[in-house]
């Protein structure tokens, strides 16, 4: 295991990303709501470049006490990474598909130290 320095924290805006590679692995590093996440750039579905997909807030549906569907909205707290090949979505917090834990991204630990962002590979 080794820590790869991928950039300075101050370089990452909210919702920004950077992809790094050693030719064997492609890793996407994301800054979302002040947290850093790193995933392998390969979707478990068909190997698509998931780290080159859009970051979208989770869609939520709201029900009334009578179980009537009232409205849908975008979450303000939870964001997904969406594979651009087929739309598979993955939770940043867990790397798992929001509809099934059976589908998940390979995650890498991230570490921020003195404004430096590292990914453990």
């Amino acid at each position, binding site marked *: 295991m080794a820590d*790869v*320095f991928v950039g300075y924290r101050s370089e990452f805006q909210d919702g920004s990303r950077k*992809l*790094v590679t050693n030719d064997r692995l492609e890793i996407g590093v994301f800054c979302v709501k002040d947290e850093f996440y790193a995933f392998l750039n390969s979707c478990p579905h068909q190997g698509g470049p998931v*780290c*080159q997909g859009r970051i979208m807030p989770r869609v939520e549906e709201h029900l009334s006490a009578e179980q009537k569907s009232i409205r849908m909205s975008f979450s303000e707290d939870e964001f997904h990474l969406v594979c651009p*090949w*087929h739309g598979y979505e993955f939770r940043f917090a867990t790397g798992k598909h929001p509809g099934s834990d059976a589908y998940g991204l390979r995650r890498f630990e991230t570490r921020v130290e003195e404004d430096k962002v590292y990914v453990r*590979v």
Partner: protein
Amino acid sequence: MDDRISQPGFRDMGINGPLTSESDTRETLRHAAKYRDKMGFKDYFIVDLDTHHVETSSWNEIIEFVEDPILREEALSFKRKPDSRLGTVLYHANGGMFSQSVSGRIPHSNLSPGEPRDDKTVHPDVVPLRRAMDSFGIDRMIMFPNALLQIGTHPNIKIETNLAFAYAKFLTEVVLPGDPRLKTMALLPFSDPDACERMIEMYGDHPSVIGFSITSVRYSPVHDNKYMRIYRMLEERGLPLSFHAGFNWQDGYLRQLDKFITMHAISFVLCNMVHMANWVMHGLCERFPKLPVVWIESGLAYLPFMMQRLDNEYLMRQSEAPLLKKLPSEYIRDMYHCCQPMERTNMKLLQATFEAIDAENRLLYSSDWPHWDFDAPSIITDLAFVSEQGKRNILGENARRIYKKL
């Protein structure tokens, strides 16, 4: 190289944002190209039986090929207005098409991709298809349209016929000459059997027209006697007949489905289920035993249902289908099926389906690129339960066996 990256061997890829509808197909499919090289696809013969051409982006050219002078004038009158948005004039729209990208989450499926097409030696429509072929490692790509898949619901039969001929002429004269790997199965204007016969006469010998296709979104019982001459013509010429599924949000039952996901999931299967039921139970496999019939873009999960359902009822009501000499499932197994979108969330069910349809000898690879639910060739090569020869058959050799012009 970003020298600030401390770990030896790691470098910044220079990718700081998502793919968009402006992205180059080669970048979107960069991972497919890596897989192509890893698997040695250059040693495979890969046929993609179903790729989509975004014909609406060339609509102003296509309508120039409309034969009927009155319809052509009507179409061109829109074009002449300097401030008019040409759109798909003459076309009978079917709502919901623009939901394909899931609100932009899947950028390559947008109908008007902004990809630069800087190769000026070929028609602009050839450029992204060529990039896709190269990226996937595809040797032959069979082109189908997008919007014209709903041509069978047009209220004006004359327009259906004219658009089918205009599109065939546009493809064969303008697009297909751009790359010898590109082929098509010409659309039959199925509401007009006489015009279908004329279409086969005109294009049956064209080297880039490898067969003919019925757009399945329509209300035309395929066993009607008025179609028998068409099937005979194709059988005599050794030209396969395909049924290309599509969605139909205007259908009475499907109008109850208010989400694209449910409409799409059911609609793309329902149309081919109806035509397949009529094809099998009216004995058309017996009447045209040498006509290869290909079912496109309904996936595979519906086939075990159709086989079991029709067999079960046939055994109780054989008198209603006296032309059959064997079980309906055996006729379904004798026909050819394109895999996409290949449902594979339950591999045991998929394996059983492969066995039921004799997939190693009857299944045909299709990508449906650039649509949102496309399948790369890896979906076949990654299957553990298929033999190496079976994978080669599915990816191209089965198609080469029945399509003589490949």
